[in-house]
Structures are given as C-alpha cells and as structure tokens.
C-alpha cells in the first residue's frame, strides 16, 4: 500500500475479507507502506500500488489494484473457489 489513499484502504478491506472467507488461519500477510519504506518497493519493483505479492507457495504472483475484482483475485491466488 501507499499511505492511506482510497485504493490502499480499499485493498486492505478487500484483503481482510478474503482471508476471513477463504484463508482463515492459513495465511501470513505482511503489510508494507511504500511511502514509509521506499526501499521495499524498490526491491520488489512495486511501481503500481496497491499491489499484492504471493510469495509462497511458488510460483510468485503479483496482483495489482485494490483487489475489488474478487474473481480475478481468487484465480490469481490459485484458490479453488475461483474456479466455477
């Protein structure tokens, strides 16, 4: 996320909801504010925010945006609920 802009706040809300509904107790999330820590953004090449990086299990996936497209998010994270 980047500061408390509307997209960043929306992304946090959407991500919490996703964890509640699909990943309860099965995930660890690290939240980095690139405004406070630009080196982290530099390291992971985060130009567009908000951005969600799935670090494990591999392969790594990057999702850009405020995560309001639930279907795309589920598919990107390879969660079975994403498949119809």
């Amino acid at each position: 996320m980047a500061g408390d802009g509307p997209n960043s706040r929306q992304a946090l809300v959407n991500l919490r909801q996703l964890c509640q509904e699909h990943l309860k107790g099965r995930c660890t999330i690290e939240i980095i504010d690139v405004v406070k820590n630009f080196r982290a953004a530099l390291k992971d090449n985060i130009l567009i925010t908000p951005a969600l990086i799935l670090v494990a299990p591999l392969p790594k996936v990057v999702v850009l945006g405020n995560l309001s497209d639930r279907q795309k998010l589920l598919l990107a994270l390879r969660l079975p609920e994403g498949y119809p």
Partner: protein
Amino acid sequence: MRVRGRPIPKVPTQISGLDEVLEGGLPRGRTTLASGGPGSGKTVLGLEFLCSGAMAGEPGVFVTLEERAEAVRKNALSLGWDLAALEKAGKVAVVEARLYGEEVISGDFDISGLLAIVGGQIKRIKARRVVIDALDVLLRVFGDPRRERNELYRLHEWLIDRGLTNVLTAKVHREGDAAPQYEFLDFMADCVIRLDHRVIGQVATRRLRVIKYRGSGFGTNEYPYVIGDHGIVLFPLTKAELTHQALGPKVSTGLAGLDAMLAGGYRRASCVLITGTSGTGKTSLACTFVQSACRAGERALYLSFEESREAMVTAMLSAGIDLRPALRRRKLMVQTGLPEAMGSDGHLIRALQAIDDFKPNHVILDAVSACVRMGSEQAAFDYLMRLVSIVKERGITCIMTNQITGLVGTDEELSGIGFSSVVDAVIQLRFVEKGREINRQVLIVKSRGSAHSNLRQPFAITSLGIEIPDSPRPPVDRAGQADTKDGGK
C-alpha cells in the same frame, strides 16, 4: 498598467546548440516534454541533461521505464558519461522501473509506488532534476485515457510541488505529431521539444523543433542535429544576426601571378570559390595554396569528397605540387569521405570535429558539386551554409572548388546551388581553344572588399606547378570604395 515581464528562470542543458534555441535552457522547476519516434534521441537528451546537471552540482534521478538500468549506463558511457561513478558519488540515482506485463489486475490502482521510490531517491541524493524515460510505457498499464491523464497530471503536480526541473520523454509514432491519446502531454508540459528522425532522399536526418515554451521565447525553426560521440549536437544556424568576423588581411595564394590579380592574395576568413569544368585545374590551384600556406607554418584541413588522400597526393605530384612534407609535419589534415556515406548532418559533425581538434587556419572543400550526393540539393545547401558560417565565425579561410558542366554567366550558376551570398571571391578557370591548341585561362569574377584584375589571364599546369605570368596590367584600384562598402563589415 503594463509591466515588463520578468524572464523565467532557466536551467542550461549544456547540449551543444540547444540552449541557444531555448534562449538559455529548460524552465527551472517545471516540466519539459521530449517526444519523438524510435531512435530520435529522447533518452540521450534526458541523459545529457541529467549528467551535465550532476556535474554542475544539481543531482538528478533517472527513471527508466523501458530499458534496463544496465543498458542506460552503457548508453551513457558511449556518450562519455560514467553514470556508475556518478551514482557512487551520490550525484545520480537510476531507478529501473519496469513493468513486466505478467501482473494480474484486480480493481483500481495508481502510481504511488513509483512516486514513493522516486521520492525516496530524491531525498537520498537531494535531487534537483528528474528524467522519466518513456512515459508512454507507464501510461499503457492504465488502458484508459481518462485514468492515464489523471495519473499523469498527478505525476506532473508531484514533481512541480517538489520544485524539480524535469524532463519526461514519450514515444510518438506519427511524424512530427503526438499520438492523439497523448496530446494532453503537450498541453500539460511547459516546454515541448519534438525530435524527429526521418529519411530524406535515402539519407537519415534528424530534426529538432521546440513546439512551445511557456513564458519564454524560443527558436521556432526545425534544427538539424546529430548524435555524435559526445551526445546531441544542434546546428541553430538561422539566428537573426550574422556573427562572421570581418574579412582578414591577405594571404598568398602560392602564385605570384594570382596574388597580383587579387591585389595580394586571398583574404583570410573569406570564402573563395574556385569554379570550372572538369580538368581545368581547380584542385591543383587549391593544393598550390595548401602547399604554400603549410610551408609558412599554417595548418590546412582538406575535405575531399572526390578522391582518396593517396590518390590526391599522387595526382598533385605530377603537377609539381608536393603535399607530403605538409602531411608529415602535420600541417595538413586530409579528411576524405564519400558524400553518400552519411547524411549532410553527419558530414558536418565530422568536419566540425576535425576543425575543433586540428584548429586549421584554412579549410579546403573539394568539391561543392559533390555535396549534392549527400542526399539532395537542400542537404548540400544546409551543409555548405553551416560549414561556411562556422568556418567564417572562427576566422578560418575557406577555399571551395566547384565543378560546373558548361559555360556560365551568373553567380548563382557559379556556386551551383545558390549560396553565393556567403562567397566572397569567385575564381573561374576555363579552357579556350586557339587554333589546334587548348589553353587555360583564369578570371577573377568577384573579390569582395578588394581590388582585383578584370582580365582573363592564361595559365599553365606544368610538372613544376602552376604557372601564371605576372599580371601585365595592374589590378584596377577600387580598394578605397570597396573596403568601406564590403570589406569594412
């Protein structure tokens, strides 16, 4: 009440010729857009601006959205800038910000991440300048013209708020025009520079034009430029005032007879055209001068578009002119090249580099007529006008040969492509048939700011050189009148 506008503060780019066109440089603390097609030199312009700033105590951040940082460093090194060293010294930061296109997009987003990174680097090195290379790449992710525009305005405001002098580059594909979806870039920026890389008559040429400059005047023409070993070099010839030096004192032509006809010889810092049909002795006459000047310890640069150095030296030997000592003593530099080998801009930069390095007293160009093969008559005209202008500005004598095909009357035809206004003296060589003989004659058609003979003189080229008899009648003395009119400028 009207008040006199205060000139806006500017930052020089240190790009040769560009600051003249921009009347000082880019707008300080504002946005400049440099747009152009592929290969037009946008990145080079940005790099030069940034590096020269870093050297002058204004650190800068270079954001590359398309090329890898390593490629940018290599590019800079080829122009003589050690970016890695500047980075180490904390004067430059290169931010490689590339999107890979593999990201999944879910919902709305913005470029805060990029701003955070750039902001962090700006703070770290106390940057005063920012270059963002290939903005169009960043905009493409949005895939929505309205969103693109909003994010771009945000970026623009963000940079301005921090008082950064910034250059944004963007690709445009249509010749000389912004792609319609990027038109707003032109409105947003305070200064817009369009770089154009096009092919005229099979020869690639580059042209730069300043489209707008808020709060400042600027040169409004299209200016040819080249990207040489030291980056972009512009030729803003079309300045309002001429800064040529006044014609200098006389220098011997190397022939007592011709000196007599010219009332002492060629004038220094003047442009002399030797014209005639094939075989009349134009090159021999030019080389006679070279030999004489070099013997006197002066330096001559010979630009030959007709033959190789060796061929020329050998041919001159048979006419009794030995250029070898001058070459050995490095008083003579011969630069040869096929006119077709590159565009007129390329030839010009090559000649200018030789002039800068060698610092000649005299430049010989052989031949004007060959220059048309650089692409077009316009290209040859541009080349010659610029070369003569620069040479005169530096007080260098310019001797040019021109091959004509028939009998001539006017100045226009004498110079071939209508640049007679910069030609100060015209010497015409010709053959005359007399019975079963063919003889040579020389005539001074004009000699600005100097008396000259009005007679056709016979001359011969022997194995001992050119022979012109001493003038049987002294030159008509109109020096007083001519000197005040033309020569005294």
